[in-house]
């Protein structure tokens, strides 16, 4: 696992990843109790040329280093890693506002819980709903920040509906 974070940090330092943050289950687990997950999701802001997203430098870097692809993953050691280019303003903002934490000797960036809540709410597959509930139940959420994020990204109604259904 440390190897994964070292590779990502190297990509960041070499400018291959403009900016990145760990998201998904691993980021959620940073704040909550551990639960089963099989991969690491890395959200990254890809470089753009004339508003066209360029993904090749980052794949080239990893493949040249000998890392193999498996389905939608890149295997770093025995850990499947999914690199997700930020597709919405919410995801982009989440990466920019990510916090820095330590994993053993490596500094890594992790999405803030308020942004995880917003992203899970937006995507809202059953597994996202599960993580959303874990975060709301177990983590001290900055409510002012959460409501600011939700309202700016038009998610406040969806959040209120969700709260009514699961906590009402």
């Amino acid at each position, binding site marked *: *696992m440390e190897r994964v974070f070292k590779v990502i940090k190297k990509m960041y330092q070499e400018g291959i990843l403009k900016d990145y943050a760990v998201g998904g289950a691993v980021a959620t687990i940073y*704040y909550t*109790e*551990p639960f*089963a997950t099989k991969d690491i999701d890395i959200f990254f802001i890809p470089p753009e040329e004339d508003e066209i997203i360029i993904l090749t430098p980052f794949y080239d870097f990893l493949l040249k280093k000998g890392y193999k692809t498996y389905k939608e993953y890149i295997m770093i050691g025995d850990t499947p890693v999914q690199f997700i280019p930020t597709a919405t303003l919410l995801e982009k903002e989440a990466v920019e506002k990510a916090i820095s934490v330590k994993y053993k000797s490596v500094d890594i960036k992790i999405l803030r819980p308020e942004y995880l809540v917003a992203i899970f709410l937006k995507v809202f597959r059953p597994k996202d709903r599960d993580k959303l509930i874990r975060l709301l139940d177990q983590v001290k959420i900055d409510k002012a920040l959460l409501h600011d994020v939700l309202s700016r990204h038009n998610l406040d109604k969806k959040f209120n509906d969700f709260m009514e259904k699961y906590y009402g």
Partner: protein
Amino acid sequence: MDKPSDRNQKKVEKFREMIFKSKEECRRIFAKEPFEKKIKTAFELYRQAEYLKKFKP
């Protein structure tokens, strides 16, 4: 006076409450574990879940 079945039901309810409370406490303890340990546990849980799936009828 309560019927024996009612008393039993109350005892069961009390026992269930105790279990849920203790599970919540465990969650809080697990959440405070170091990040490295939590990630290790998360991947191990996945491996175990995949193994157990082999025994589905």
